[in-house]
């Protein structure tokens, strides 16, 4: 199982904030492939400009491995202040 969190415009696009994916994907790339099977528009957006991923609250690259129970967050361009 991987727990996936969406923020900002990605959440609005998908229509959900948090979802579990089972069985646990072995990598970030595998998780994205699972997402693409369900929601192509969301998968395209995850690969869009400026979107970053964090695995267990650490920024990760596209080929990062996932452990069972990993928390994966997809982060669109950030803007605070």
């Amino acid at each position, binding site marked *: 199982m991987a727990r996936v969190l969406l923020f900002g415009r990605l959440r*609005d696009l998908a229509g959900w904030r948090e979802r579990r994916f089972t069985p646990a994907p072995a990598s970030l790339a595998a998780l994205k492939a699972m997402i693409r099977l369900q929601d192509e528009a969301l998968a395209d957006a995850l690969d869009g400009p400026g979107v970053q991923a964090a695995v267990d609250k650490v920024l990760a690259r596209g080929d990062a491995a996932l452990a069972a129970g990993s928390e994966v967050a997809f*982060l669109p361009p*950030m*803007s*605070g*202040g």
Partner: protein
Amino acid sequence: MIRLIGETFDPGAALNAFSGGRTVTGAVASFLGIARGEPGRPVALELEAYPGFTEARIAALINTAIDRFGLQDAQVIHRVGPIPPGEPIVLVLTAAPHRREAFEACDFLMDYLKSRAPFWKKEYGPDGERWVEPTTRDLSDIERWT
């Protein structure tokens, strides 16, 4: 120190608490961001954070600023959730022996908060809502520090 807060806060009380009792600090710079918007509208903007991750990233950013500018102290107070027009969004405070370091560190922290800190901001305007992303100016501002 970083504090995320879900309701309005008192910038003056924060400035006094931060600056009071210092005898080796000559300089305290601050920046207060205020939600612009038509008075009377319930919400000017809404800020979302990633609890745990957002605080950790900003704490690391504050430590970078302390090292880079030789600060004695720095603090960020940042709102999350819906913010009515006229209310504070963010307060950045920096303390240093001299003014140049305090100013530059405050400026640096704001530039990073605007385009690198894990917040997502929805603006509620007369034409509806939209997600705000860093502006061209935000992106050129942050280039100054690399």
